[in-house]
């Protein structure tokens, strides 16, 4: 703190310095000293308008935040989003009403049975108790330098799941909700079973999404290659997942 000295490089103007450039509290007091003149009055009026405008703006901002101030293209975007969503929901509604009508129509319970089977098949796929096939990818991780650890394989599984893989099989182990990978003396174990390289992930889901997800810069493939693995991804129209988990 150097105190009230004029800044270096700026010569104080002679004659005005003493009263026109005060410091600290005196400056504030000087600011507040009323001086009546035309300019001051106009300035006061402008500040009045400013205060009024600030309050008006704040009030209008609090009242309606989203739509009143949105521009036309934003509103169009919101509208089309809503349209798409309501269309999807209407489709869902139609399906559910169809199901309801069929359930009401048949007394023998045939439709109910069919619905229950469908649901059982879905849950079986998720739980890994039934085999599955469908479009997907095959991810092969060759490991000549034995550099791949359990955590890399877990990353691969999670990355596949994030990218929408519904069913995944690693070598002959079906991945389920409680699958785990473990580093062992002679390699990696999955759910207690030893995995022999190359590790082959068979995943059913959207091949394009999964391939993109695995290939992002700094993503899984890069990490595995940095660990000395040879990675190849093959999209397939039909991937067969035949390993099952015991219920």
């Amino acid at each position, binding site marked *: *703190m*150097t*105190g*009230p000295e004029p*800044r270096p490089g700026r010569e104080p*103007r002679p004659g*005005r310095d003493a009263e*026109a*450039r005060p*410091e*600290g509290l005196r*400056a*504030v007091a000087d*600011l*507040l*000293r*009323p*001086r*009546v*003149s*035309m*300019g*001051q*009055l*106009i*300035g*006061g*009026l*402008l*500040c*009045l*308008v*400013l*205060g*009024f*405008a*600030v*309050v*008006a*703006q704040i*009030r*209008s*901002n609090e009242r309606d935040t989203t739509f*009143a*101030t949105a*521009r036309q293209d934003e509103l169009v975007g919101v509208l089309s989003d809503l349209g798409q969503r309501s269309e999807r929901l209407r489709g869902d509604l139609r399906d559910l009403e169809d199901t309801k009508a069929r359930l009401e129509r048949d007394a023998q319970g045939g439709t109910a049975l069919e619905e229950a089977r469908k649901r059982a098949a879905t849950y079986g796929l998720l739980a890994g108790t039934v085999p599955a096939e469908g479009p997907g990818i095959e991810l092969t991780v060759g490991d000549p330098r034995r550099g791949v650890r359990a955590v890399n394989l877990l990353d691969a599984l999670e990355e596949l799941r994030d990218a929408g893989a519904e069913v995944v099989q690693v070598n002959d182990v079906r991945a389920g909700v409680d699958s785990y990978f473990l580093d062992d003396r002679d390699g990696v174990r999955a759910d207690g079973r030893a995995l022999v390289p190359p590790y082959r992930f068979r995943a059913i889901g959207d091949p394009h999404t999964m391939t993109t997800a695995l290939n992002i810069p700094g993503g899984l493939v890069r990490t595995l290659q940095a660990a000395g693995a040879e990675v190849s991804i093959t999209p397939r129209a039909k991937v067969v997942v035949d390993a099952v988990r015991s219920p």
Partner: protein
Amino acid sequence: MIALIGLVIGVTLGLVLQPDVPLWAEPYLPIAVVAALDAMFGGIRARLEGIFDEKVFVVSFLSNTVIAALIVFLGDKLGVGSQLSTGVVVVLGIRIFSNAAGIRRRLFGA
């Protein structure tokens, strides 16, 4: 002092009258308010530095608000309204900060 009284009266009036912002002014008022704030801070700084001039203050206040609103209006017509208003707010924000820094230097000498 008169400016401060004016500000207080304005805020009170706004609270009492509860005005609605007319629809045509809705995109421009926030920008104009920010511009006016900039002019006000500039005025305080000029006052503290002893170079305050009422005419300059009034003219800069009015021209700042009008130009800011005009820029946004033009941007809306050109289809870059939201980007341009962001740009205006950024510029005015920088100016307000530098004005505030000037005021601080004058008041506290730091």
